[in-house]
């Protein structure tokens, strides 16, 4: 047996800023085997959930991931509503889909940026994140938060999107679309990106089926699965859109699927906004008295793929068992197929290709005064600043 060199990526990933360790066993430049160590940040959310009431669980599962923070409450709401046997009002369905799709746009833009960063192409990184910012502003206008929107509850949503806000949302959305055009054109035609991503990290259709991969990772390999289409929920059966797929299964195909999906998301939001205008304002919840005994399988299509929540209720006010499966759980395992045989340089972008989930909710640095060592900004000032920014955004929206 030939000697292999161990190249570690982690335990703190230098680019993804997330605790995980990939051990690449290399022969020269070529990756021959890969192993990973996870669990550095295991929070035991399934167990925690059993000690919380159903209303509290929404806030708990929202914190599983900072980027797809609405997918988990979405799937959890679907699971609990299946147990109770209710459907939210049409207005609530539209609002849920709008939040879900806005999240997909910001998550895909974030990935495109990071993919550029991984390739050493920081122009793409700067562009994509700049274009993502208005989407986060939009979130702040609608929900009061850039991430962790706290919009979901059993039987509906917590906040309405009042009809007078719709014009402003449309305006921002059309700007986002123009910028997405620019970005898509630049990325898809760039010879450097082609050279670095085409034929890299190929995942075959059979591998996708074997590993049970989901989301853009599966769709880029020609497996057209999308929970929004297959097991429709919220407003997705009420609007027209199509599932984007690609055939080659390489990193370029994954980028292509994500970029084109953003257009579908924008189209879904536009149709949902038109739907909202027809519904009566304020009808956003269905009243529920108690959660009966039973079990519910809830799923939602997160930006990274299918999120699955299994809830077992014993008739009390908290779940008896709550199983959560995030899409990265099955997608990360596919590295065993996609990375082996690649060079080390290509392995990093392949590892990023499935868009493993990470938090980037940091939005401010606290600066210390070099002379006095005093904090330039304390927690109270941070909160005040956050509130004033939200108010400022709301004012800006009035003027749009």
């Amino acid at each position, binding site marked *: 047996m030939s000697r292999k060199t161990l190249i570690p990526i982690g335990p703190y990933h230098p680019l993804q800023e997330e605790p995980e360790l990939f051990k690449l066993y290399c022969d020269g430049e070529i990756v021959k085997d890969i192993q990973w*160590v*996870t*669990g550095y940040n*295991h929070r*035991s959310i*399934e*167990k925690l959930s059993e000690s919380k009431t159903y209303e509290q669980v929404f806030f708990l599962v929202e914190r599983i991931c900072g980027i797809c923070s609405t997918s988990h409450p979405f799937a959890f709401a679907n699971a609990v509503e*299946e147990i109770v046997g209710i459907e939210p009002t049409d207005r609530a369905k539209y609002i849920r889909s709008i939040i879900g799709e806005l999240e997909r746009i910001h998550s895909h833009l974030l990935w495109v940026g990071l993919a550029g960063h991984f390739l050493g192409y920081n122009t793409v990184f700067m562009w994509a994140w700049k274009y993502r910012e208005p989407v986060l502003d939009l979130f702040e206008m609608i929900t009061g938060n850039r991430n962790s929107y706290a919009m979901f509850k059993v039987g509906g949503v917590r906040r309405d999107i009042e009809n007078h806000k719709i014009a402003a949302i449309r305006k921002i959305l059309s700007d986002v679309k123009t910028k997405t055009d620019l970005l898509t054109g630049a990325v898809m035609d760039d010879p450097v990106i082609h050279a670095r991503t085409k034929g890299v990290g190929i995942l075959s259709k059979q591998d996708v*089926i*074997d*590993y*049970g991969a989901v989301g853009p990772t599966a769709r880029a390999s020609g497996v057209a*699965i999308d929970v929004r289409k*297959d*097991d*429709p929920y919220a407003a997705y059966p009420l609007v027209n859109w199509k599932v984007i797929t690609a055939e080659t299964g390489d990193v370029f195909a994954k980028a292509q699927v994500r970029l084109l999906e953003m257009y579908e998301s924008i189209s879904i939001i536009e149709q949902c906004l038109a739907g909202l205008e027809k519904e009566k304002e304020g009808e956003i919840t269905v009243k529920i008295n108690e959660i009966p005994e039973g*079990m519910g*399988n809830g*799923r939602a299509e997160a930006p990274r793929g*299918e999120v*699955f929540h*299994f809830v*077992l209720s014993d008739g009390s006010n908290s779940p*008896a*068992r709550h*199983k959560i*499966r995030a899409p990265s*759980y*099955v997608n990360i*395992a596919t590295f*065993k197929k996609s990375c082996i045989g690649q060079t080390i340089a290509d392995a990093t972008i392949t590892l990023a290709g499935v868009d493993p989930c990470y938090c980037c909710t940091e939005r401010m640095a606290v600066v210390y005064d070099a002379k006095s060592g005093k904090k330039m900004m304390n927690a109270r000032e941070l909160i005040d600043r956050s509130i004033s920014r939200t108010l400022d955004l709301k004012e800006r929206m009035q003027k749009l």
Partner: protein
Amino acid sequence: METESIIKSLKEKFSSDILGTEEKNQKRVIISIKPDVILNVASYLFRDAGFRFIIATAIHTKRGFEIHYHFSKDSDGLILNLHVTLDRDKPEIESLSNMFNASNWIEREMHELFGINFLHHPNQDKLISEGNWAEGVYPYRKDFKSITEE
């Protein structure tokens, strides 16, 4: 394949091994089976009927250890839960990981958190608590008390 025809063919093939069927609606079905036929039933679902393995949920109840294997038939939007009940004192069942890789991690996780043994699993090492958790202590069992609960 429609939900009814899937259930019908399952009943025909494994009639004596199916302990119960609960059809909540066209898209949610729970089938309880004997644990020793898990490989045959899972093989039929995955290889012949075109199901995708989503995940499995282990539950510690008074009856013992229960596992729900969640399978998805994406073309119909169907979620089929294969339900097995394992022995309280010696929970073990055949591993599905030699059939498909999708179950590899979750079986390791169930082994680690519930102490369920998966026979013929390719590598039942710890997945999440390697090196920082006591052997033989299973935190997701109902009799486990955390520091705050003690």
